[in-house]
């Protein structure tokens, strides 16, 4: 039993699911569901269909080159069964999976960081242009002027006092 990869979306095809198409040149294509199959029949390019993994990898939205990704590879030379090796492999798999997830998440976060900077810029621009919608330009100015006047008078009185 093997979990295959869907040709179109690169999702897992579990046994008993999906469709396999074999072409006249002996190349076989597996599909996880009819959505992928129909898209294939419409001759759509998975590298240009936005929701597929192939697109995401081809347009740099996801981690492509990394050592943790080299572990899962289809090898055509079968290795004889050896209990030790299998145990160790299962343990290693779990650890590798952890690391892989961490790295993929980090990659995506880094990519999205640029958005934060843009957001900041946008907020500043927004405030600069449209502050008049919330606050009138001379909103506190009357009060300010009053306070100023009061202060001035106060100062004058003080000055006057001093003089006297």
């Amino acid at each position, binding site marked *: *039993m*093997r*979990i295959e990869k869907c040709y179109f979306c690169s999702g*897992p095809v579990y046994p008993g699911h999906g469709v396999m198409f074999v072409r006249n040149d002996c190349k076989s294509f597996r599909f996880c569901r009819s959505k992928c199959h129909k898209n294939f029949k419409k001759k759509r390019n998975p590298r240009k269909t936005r929701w597929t993994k192939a697109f995401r990898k081809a347009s740099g939205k996801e981690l492509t080159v990394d*050592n*943790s990704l*080299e*572990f*899962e*590879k*289809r*090898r055509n030379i*079968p*290795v*004889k*069964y*050896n*209990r030790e*090796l*299998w145990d*160790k*492999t*299962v343990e*290693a*798999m*779990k*650890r*590798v*999976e952890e*690391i892989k997830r*961490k790295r993929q998440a*980090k990659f995506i976060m880094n990519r999205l*960081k640029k958005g934060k900077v843009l957001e*900041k810029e*946008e*907020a*500043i621009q*927004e*405030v600069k242009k*449209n*502050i008049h*919608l*919330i*606050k*009138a330009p*001379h*909103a*506190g100015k*009357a*009060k300010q002027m009053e306070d100023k006047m009061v202060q001035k008078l106060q100062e004058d009185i003080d000055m006057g006092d001093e003089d006297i």
Partner: protein
Amino acid sequence: HVIHNFHEKTDFIDITLSKTQRKTPTVIHKHYQIHRIRHFYMRKVKFTQQNYHDRLTQILTDFPKLDDIHPFYADLMNVLYDKDHYKLALGQINIAKNLIDNVAKDYVRLMKYGDSLYRCKQLKRAALGRMCTILKRQKSSLEYLEQVRQHLSRLPSIDPNTRTLLLCGYPNVGKSSFINKVTRADVDVQPYAFTTKSLFVGHMDYRYLRWQVVDTPGILDHPLEDRNTIEMQAITALAHLRAAVLYVMDLSEQCGHTLQEQLELFNNIRPLFANKPLIIVSNKCDVKKITELSEENQACDRLLAHRVDTKVKGKKVHDVLNRLHLAMPTKRDQKERPPFIPEGALMRRRAMEVDAPKRKLEKDLEMELGDDYILDLQKYWDLMNADEKNDKIPEVWEGHNIADYIDPDIMKKLEDLEKEEELKERAGEYDSDDESEDEEMQEIRVLAKQIREKKQLMVMESKEKDIHGPRMPRTATKVERKQLEKEMGELGLDMNDKDDSHYAQQGRRSRSIAKKRKREASAPPTSKTRSQSASRPPRDQSGLRDPKMARKAKKMMKNSQKGMNRQGKKGESDRHVFDLKPKHLLAGKRKSGNTDRR
């Protein structure tokens, strides 16, 4: 030779023309496009031409070419049908075929310039007519060929290469009787001369071989040029067939010719007997007894010996012998080099001889255990540790195939990976970087959010405005003081004690002016009704005496609207049907209710 039957020329033409009519499309109108009309008629012309061509070629190929067949048959045909006449007839047919092709080509070319249905039709008529005339002119050739064909099919099938005995001699000496006796042939035997007018073949068996016996018509003694066709056939046979010749003589002179004459004939045709074993047959010896032996046996043996001799002495044998050569390798040293037999083969041979069972088969095991037997192929596996043979091997973990990860170096790789990971962590790649923003930035964000909300509200308000009439400029609508103060207050301005402000004063002024106008008690003063005439009552109060009547009127109005409202109609003019073919009314059988409501 198999030649297909062909009919007289009238049939020929009729057949082809009727075929053209049947097999090509027949419907055409003059309003069709010209290329279609042209194509239609061209097709007919070409079809007719094709048919004639095919039939004539068939005739030409079916008749044998005199140069290609065995000279015996060539000569025979020449004798019977006259080579020149034959070749001429076939030549004429060939010419006719070419002429027909040319006619068709020309008319097809002309058809391209036909610009109406009538013209094209006339061209086609002309083409077909010409083709038929050409064929009509070949009438005589076709008749002749027909006769040739019929005669040719009746010729006896003489194989010129096999063992043959040829009977010749004067007419009426007994050749046909001989052949009747010896073979199963049934040739006419009559007392008059030239009963046999052509060659006849019979077959007999001798020494497990088939022999042909050929009976010829009698030959008279005159020079070659004077011979008629019948005699010429005999001569041809003599000349070309490599056979044993049996010259039959009539001892009793019952044929009407003396022995002397017969001997003379024999001497005359002797040159024809070159290279052929010759037997002189004395026939009718019961009538007159001179015993000169001639038995069939001798003739056959002689011929056989003759044939074998010629073959061995032929050059062909020498060619074959020259090519055969047996190669023997010479020994280079005294070492023994016996043939190599692998051990397995020797063992197998020994085992076969001993006949012992090799090992316990699965089948035997199955028989023993009966119902308990389980096919367990894992026990034959060749693993490093034999006790692991019965392990259940995991294949999949959390959506990943374990087989994809299996690698003898996996632990090393994992170590490297871990080291890398450590380095990365130390370098700080995995630290979450939420820089705390300074207060200013936070304030800005808050303000930006408020601005966005305000914008959304403004958009929604403008969408909710219900403008059904002409769009008035903003200054046409009066702004209420409360509204103004509220808005400005929200924007942060201080709006308390604003009674003395300009806008408030203006507001009071306009109100006091407006009060001076007379107003009807029923309608409150609004800017819209200012334009209406004061004397007209509003519609919902016109014609009603008192409130009771008004209430009743209102009730009636509401009642009439109930039906429309229940059906969700906009008004009495709304006739829109949302679902013209509702499924629940139209699908299914009429078991319950009618189709208005099911």
